[in-house]
């Protein structure tokens, strides 16, 4: 167990803890191009935060965000599909083959990293 003043979510560790096992198919997806695994039924937010400490960087203040309300109200957990579709991570189930991008499409274009 991590702990102490650095918090448990330092360096690469997930923020969420899966406290209860799930009987479900394993699914593979990608987060910003890196391959990741989850289980059918996991929300995108849970699937990402059990392996990462944060979800995305905020467009205005540049701070890191990991969602807030966890019930579809605050819209703090937006991520995007490779095709540019906006996904509310806390209420969207993960699906096999999803390619998740944590930066808004406009910014990807601005950085010249998007392909169509």
């Amino acid at each position: 167990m991590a702990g102490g003043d650095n918090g448990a979510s330092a360096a690469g560790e997930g923020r969420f803890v899966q406290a209860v096992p799930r009987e479900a198919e394993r699914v593979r997806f990608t987060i910003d191009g890196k391959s990741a695994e989850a289980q059918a039924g996991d929300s995108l937010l849970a699937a990402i935060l059990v392996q990462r400490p944060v979800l995305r960087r905020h467009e205005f203040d540049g701070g890191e965000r990991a969602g807030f309300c966890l019930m579809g109200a605050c819209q703090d957990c937006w991520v995007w599909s490779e095709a540019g579709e906006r996904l509310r991570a806390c209420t969207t189930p993960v699906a096999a083959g999803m390619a998740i991008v944590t930066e808004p499409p406009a910014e990807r274009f601005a950085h010249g990293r998007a392909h169509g």
Partner: protein
Amino acid sequence: MAELMAEVVIVGAGPAGIRAAGILAAQGLRPILVDEGRQAGGQGYRRPSPGLALDMDTLMGTEAGKYKALHADFAALLNRIDYRPRTLVWGIEDRRLHCVRDGRQTTIAFDALIVATGAMDRIAPLPGWILPGVFTLGGAQAVLKDQGCLVGRRVAFLGASPLLSLAALQYRKLGAEVVAVCDTSSFRDKIAALPQLAAVPRTLARGIAYLAALKRARVPLFDGVTPLAIEGEAGVTALRFRDGRGHERRIACDAVALGYGLKPETQLAELAGARFAFDARFRLWLPVTDEDGRAGEGLYLAGDGAAIGGADAAEASGALAALAVLHDLGLRSEHDERPALRRRLARLRRFQQGLARAFRWPVAALARLSDEVAVCRCEHVTAGDIRRAMDADLGPVDVNRVKAITRCGMGRCQGRVCGPALQEIAAAHAGLPVEAVGRLRGQAPLKPVPLGILEEEEA
């Protein structure tokens, strides 16, 4: 039998909406029950997502029976109602709801509308509240029930709500280290509320039992707390506060669950034409209804979305709203259950008023909130931005104008998170009572909808 053709639409498949649907179906109507969620049950009775080995009996404790009964009744109802999950209602016009389901626009016409849209946590910002690892208290419970996930390993619970101790116990049961439960209201507030809380002794006893269980488990409990800051760089590392005796404390943690009671989701009721009045007990603007939930012609409100009351009150008010619909359609039953339901609902809501007194919304702390703290997490508007906008020549006092100038409340959550804090900060800065600075108005779309939907609508 023209009335039987009446289209009754219920928005919200929580305890209120499900009970309303059951009563209408029992009279031979086939109501449409719309909910944004993937599964019925609403917030408090949220079901685990498929395959999760979560033992809801243990998690729900004394409420397990009601949880199971509601879901069993809903399952038995399914072939007698038109249930539409994954359907967000985002607007309303001429007795038609505008919805989006799986990315596509649909409309639903209605003759009578029951709005049972529930509530969300009421949030008071403090330094550090935007750090990753700070979540709403209800959200911390929701992700546990829905996903079997804990929001952290060492979790602090902060705010003023009876759900603080319930959530802390649930987290402990599932393996989290609960490092502190910090209640900003005092023991004196609780004593003052006892006469109202005595309206529902069983629930009062349950609340006391939660605290006793936490004490036995040696979970550090604090009341009369003044929150100072949530600390951390890339995520939460500690909670700093002054305890009830004035000692400053710093407790290491990697997550904070934050909540000051609930606020109703009233935007749809507002678009449907409900009027609002300020309720000083909750310090909230609540829609005006009669005792059965009528809020206008063909408009009925039920559950936490009408007045915060908890799950039992949601069930009772959902039933009452449905009976009001039947009554207004001329479909009266021989045995009138309404008087008994009204008495029950009044008692449950009295209890809730007691809770609002025992667990106080921190008005004074918000008035003092330091200028650099962000109030709006969507648009990053600070308390100082709000005060400066009000100080300008011809600076506004009304919160809707403050919103237009600062963008506080204009972001993607549409003021759901920052609204109550904005109202307190603006009122304190203007030196006016909070009801004098107006009420943040809702507008369509009620939640962000996919690009293209609104254009489609206008075409």
